[in-house]
């Protein structure tokens, strides 16, 4: 889903909150604006992006917010923990994959970002693979899938991930409080040399 721009009044209100809480020099009121995306798995919270367009490249910070409290998405799971503890998280079979994708897209692991693969053709490094490798990858890739562990009541997202130069099939256990536990199951492709520059 694309970002929705807030109107000028709403944008200024959000900016004031962040500027007051953070640092007066961080975003100028004239050259900055706020936008948002609704999140299907949160009842009260959305993700807000505040961008200063005065500099090149433009400077952005993303927050989870209910309009009153702001939690910086800084690459750690902290913002998720705080928001999830407020009871806003509502997970079901329909939105679980969205939650996992958003979560992984907003945390950074020690060896870089973790990509959840929805569509092999959209992988940033796909062009660097040979046609055979692309076909092989396509044949092994499965669409993300949600299953319910009836014993524990936890959801499990079965997804393909790209992490630290490796493509893996993984089961991601998502507890009702939103914590996630990645259980890699099988390597799809492991040669790091095939993905040089994929994290750039």
């Amino acid at each position: 889903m694309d970002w929705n721009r807030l109107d000028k009044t709403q944008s200024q209100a959000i900016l004031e909150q962040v500027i007051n809480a953070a640092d007066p020099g961080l975003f100028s009121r004239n050259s900055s604006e706020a936008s948002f995306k609704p999140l299907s798995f949160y009842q009260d919270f959305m993700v807000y992006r505040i961008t200063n367009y005065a500099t090149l490249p433009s400077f952005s910070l993303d927050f989870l917010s209910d309009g009153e409290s702001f939690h910086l998405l800084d690459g750690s799971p902290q913002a998720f923990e705080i928001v999830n503890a407020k009871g806003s998280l509502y997970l079901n079979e329909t939105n679980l994959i969205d939650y996992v994708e958003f979560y992984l897209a907003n945390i950074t692991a020690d060896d870089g970002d973790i990509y959840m693969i929805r569509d092999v053709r959209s992988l940033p490094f796909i062009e660097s693979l040979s046609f055979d490798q692309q076909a092989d990858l396509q044949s092994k890739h499965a669409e993300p899938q949600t299953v319910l562990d009836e014993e524990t009541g936890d959801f499990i997202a079965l997804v393909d991930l790209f992490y630290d130069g490796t493509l893996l099939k993984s089961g991601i256990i998502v507890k009702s409080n939103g914590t996630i536990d990645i259980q890699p199951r099988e390597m799809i492709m492991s040669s790091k040399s095939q993905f040089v520059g994929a994290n750039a």
Partner: protein
Amino acid sequence: MIEVKNPFIALKKAVTAEKTVEKRIIRHANEREIIEHCLNMLSLSDAGQELIDFAAENDIKYTVLRGRTARDYAPNSQNAYIVVPDSMPTDSADIVIHFTGALKEAIQEYEPDLRRIGVEKGEAVYAYKEAEKFEDKMLWQTIIVYELGKLANKSEFIDSFAAMGYYHLIEGYEKDLTGN
């Protein structure tokens, strides 16, 4: 020797919340330590010391923000920001290089030829000015990395700059200096 990591173990560790709770919303928990390290390193370079002196004379403030990836940012003449991930060691050479960039960009606002302009004068003029600003920032980063790496024997600065893809700038600068 290249360390081969086990992606299975690394992935399991990747999303555990072992980091300490950060009280402030945006500022880095080790902000003071990072700024002190950057200033200490820059003071070992003549060019770096020049930037620090200018900042002190003009009351330019330094701020370290938490973020996903390291970068520099200077929204105006009074504030130089760097973004540092929690996971990055606070004495990393990368941080000092970004700090240099942010500081030089703030100082550009005091230089008539390099002061930021809006798009009112046309996109071409704006793009030209931004290119000039970038070139100036890179020049200062190159000089400081060279002075720290080659003259102060802190090779990690050369390594970091090379990893960012700018080793050719060090080579070029050295060639200019030596005439070879």
